[in-house]
């Protein structure tokens, strides 16, 4: 029992980038365990997707035809069946919204320990040692899984994508889906927020976060944007408050941006926000908290009060 089973993610016929990172991480882990990397593609156009998974380090690709798109009941049963057949040491998936929707159920069904949103892992004598973030990413903690097998979900953006082309056998895995246990029906998809501004097109984006406090304080940011001809984007809480249209939300559930400069003002740098700004050439952050995780990815860090720094900047550029 030393193999790794990696379950990839796809949507609307496209493999998601996180899946290629999963293969990279899975190959390293299988190496460390002296085992094989098995990859599963469930639903959709599994065969066509399997072609893109033909990468170095992958030993076998299993395709499971059931279901056009993701359905958590089908995934739970399919992964359970594959697990019984392969008896892997570790089940790996990306830490995504769909993982949040089915992986905990897999762990319960198989009675396996689960660690989610992992940013690093290492095989040790005590077990599989994982690293994850605590307290809004201000602290990293190791969590050792003392039992094998186990289930682990990996934070997107932390592992290099698997490269190269192998020549990996693709096997069709068949199992008896218990239709009576499918209690959910996916009816379709909708695109959210095609609203007022295209933040993805801006060269200079000012991202404003909860540090702004009250809606009336936004004028501090608007003044700077007016003087510099910048576009204003926002973190999720401000959109939740109704202060901005969803089209201005940057992050995992919002827009992915790649401006020349992203000026993050009063934004802590939660992983779901940072997911949207990694493509910025330069990140400048203004935050009162010296431990704010945004500083870990910023090129220029200003530990200071936005209400002192931003009006001063506006004056200097006027």
């Amino acid at each position: 029992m030393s193999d790794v089973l990696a379950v990839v993610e796809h949507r609307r016929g496209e493999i998601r980038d996180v899946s290629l990172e999963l293969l990279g991480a899975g190959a390293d882990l299988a190496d460390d365990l002296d085992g094989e990397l098995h990859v599963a593609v469930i639903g959709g156009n599994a065969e066509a997707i399997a072609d893109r998974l033909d990468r170095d380090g992958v030993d076998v690709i299993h395709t499971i035809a059931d279901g056009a798109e993701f359905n958590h009941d089908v995934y739970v049963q399919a992964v359970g069946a594959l697990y019984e057949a392969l008896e892997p040491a570790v089940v790996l998936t990306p830490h995504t919204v769909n993982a949040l929707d089915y992986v905990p159920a897999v762990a319960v069904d198989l009675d396996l320990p689960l660690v989610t949103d992992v940013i690093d892992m290492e095989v040790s004598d005590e077990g599989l040692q994982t690293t994850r973030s605590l307290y809004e990413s201000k602290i990293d903690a190791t969590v050792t899984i003392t039992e094998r097998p186990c289930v682990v979900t990996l934070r997107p953006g932390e592992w290099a994508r698997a490269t190269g082309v192998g020549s990996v056998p693709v096997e069709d895995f068949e199992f008896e889906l218990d239709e009576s246990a499918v209690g959910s029906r996916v009816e379709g998809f909708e695109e959210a927020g095609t609203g007022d501004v295209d933040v993805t097109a801006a060269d200079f984006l000012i991202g404003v976060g909860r540090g702004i406090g009250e809606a009336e304080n936004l004028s501090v940011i608007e003044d700077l944007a007016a003087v510099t001809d910048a576009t204003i984007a926002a973190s999720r809480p401000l959109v939740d408050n109704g202060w901005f249209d969803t089209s201005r939300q940057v992050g995992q559930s919002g827009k992915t941006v790649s401006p020349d400069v992203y000026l993050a003002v009063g934004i802590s740098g939660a992983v779901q926000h940072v997911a949207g700004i990694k493509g910025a050439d330069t990140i400048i952050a203004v935050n009162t908290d010296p431990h704010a995780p945004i500083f870990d990815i910023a090129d220029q860090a200003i530990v200071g009060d936005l209400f002192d720094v931003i009006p001063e900047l506006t004056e200097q550029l006027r």
Partner: protein
Amino acid sequence: MKILVTFAEVAAVADNFEIEDGAVADRYLEYDLNEWDEYALEAAVSLREEGIAEEVVTVTIGPERSADTIRMALAKGADRAIRIWDDDLRGDPLEDVSTRAALMAPVVEAEAPTLVLSGVQAADDGYGSTGVSLARTLGWQWGAVVNDFTLDREADSVRVRRELEGGIEEITTLSLPAVLTIQTGINDPRYASLRGLQEAQAQEIDVQSPAELGVWADRLEPRLERGELTEPPSRGDTEYVEGDPPEQATAIADRLLEAGVVQE
């Protein structure tokens, strides 16, 4: 119908803290109710106000200290609160999400609600798994990262809108009873009124131990061990700007000029 809300007290570290002997000392921790659970609670209380639900009950796993947070939930409109605890839960057992689900499942079974609402994740440890683990432990349906839902009592189902990455939403119908994990932005959580807070002070919190719930010690054997805490590594090439606000502003202005997004 009854709605149960899982409600967590979460810890945040103060702006200036230190890691001592691999741990954060308690004096640097501040406790509060979990943001995501506040939205779940608001959704439940609104359904009661609309006459769709009769009762809203909260369940929290937490030590004596968490009573303050629980009273906040009562002040915001929960009818009753249950707190699960004994000192054996201190330390590693709760690191394993399935332990939390195992502790809450008997409460859900005893209360028999139609709907359980949980926050998508807890702000402090961010496992994001309690709601779905609980649903599966109960053998119920579930939906994760829900930003809208509509009950259909006749069809005994709930239609949920799930927020996927990149502004795409999935519409799914689930059979009831179900557990939904609630995303922020689904509503506008209310503030607790002073009167509500005062009344909550007088309310009883029903405390139950794992043994009383029939969850035995072997279920609480940790399979996960939390080890060392460290500060996350910084990328290394971050330029920290010293000085007073005008000097800091000048440094930003220089960077903006250098990047060519503003002109002199």
